[in-house]
């Protein structure tokens, strides 16, 4: 049975480029907008790419900076220099 991974981010200036990058890079997302937060669900896995966020942000971005915006997440985390990946694999 496919399982849903999920990430919830604050809906702020800092997080919006990350949300935009996730939306662009991961087809088949389900996005829930709640007051002040955005919950993003996807079957199987979800990746935040460093390069996509940097492109939107216009500066160097360390994937660890995502922790300043995360409210909650579900899935096993694989955190690298170039991406931040959630999956149930």
């Amino acid at each position, binding site marked *: 049975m496919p399982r849903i991974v999920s990430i919830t981010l604050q*809906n702020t*200036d800092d997080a*919006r*480029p990350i949300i935009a990058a996730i939306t662009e890079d991961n087809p088949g997302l389900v996005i829930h*907008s*709640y*007051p002040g937060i955005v919950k993003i669900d996807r079957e199987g896995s979800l990746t935040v790419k460093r390069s996509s966020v940097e492109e939107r*942000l*216009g*500066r160097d971005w360390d994937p660890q900076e995502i922790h300043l915006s995360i409210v909650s997440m579900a899935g096993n985390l694989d955190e690298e220099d170039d991406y931040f990946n959630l999956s149930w694999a």
Partner: protein
Amino acid sequence: MSIDIKTIKVEQRRNTFGHIARRLGGDKPASRYEEGTFDIQATANFHYKPLWDVDHWQYDEGRTQIRLKDWYVLRDPRQYYYANYTIARAAQSQANERAFDFVEKRNQLALLSPAWRETVSFYLLPLRHVEWGANMNCGNMCDRGYGTAVTAPCLFSAADHLAMAQILGRIGLALDGNTGTSLDAAKARWMEAGEWQDLRRLVEDSLVIEDWYEQMVAQNLCFDGLLYPLVYKLFDAEGQAHGATGLSMLTEFMSEWFAEHSRWVDSVIKITAAESGENKDLINGWLSKWSAAAAAALRPLAVRVLGNQKGAAAIDTVVADLKKRALTLGLTA
């Protein structure tokens, strides 16, 4: 008793200003950069043409031969607006301050060999007058340019050049024990030393360029593109053998700044050249004119610092690098 906490989602009527939404193609949350940049400059309903330029309006696309359908395509890849620009520079200024403390505490400038100390006073300190010229040029581009997307970063650059002139001034004071004599000597060299006169003429010629976009190509692409790699990379590398490590820490801001500044310049020129053949031809013409002039003006200085052979080779290296860079921008160089 159980308490059921509910949240009510209030949909805001609009996410951003109308003129920003039209730019973004829909009402979406906009970044501070977008809201602080798009369509900020006035475009219509000017009452009188300014006395200082009776042929143009206060803001007028006709002050350059370059034509763009929409000047707001020249976005800054760094996305600088007032707040994040000043925050970024404040952090760099603090790092620079610490470098000065570090170098002064350990008296690292005393490690410079006497001959190289003299060379440094010769090539580095008069550059504060070049920085002042660059400050004037960038201020002029901001003044005569069109569209906040390109004029705001021009003013940021102008401030950066002033900051670098101040850093050079402080290095002078650190070298001469806070007497200021090294800066007076640097001014005299700028005005009189043979090796500096071509560069001084070049800076003075660039101050009176009529077309602000030509000034952009001359200053930001040609002068900066040759001067910074030459002085802060090649001269600096030569200095390592003469005890100039401490000095490198003091000029680190310039290397950092040049890399960041180039990202913006490259993006502006690439987008402009890609819009039409006429734009590309104009930029190519300005590039070959001003890069040749700048290379020729820097040559005597390079020869004085590095010697005949090495100096000529250094100029060839920075010119070749600028050509490579121009090719990536879609220019013919």
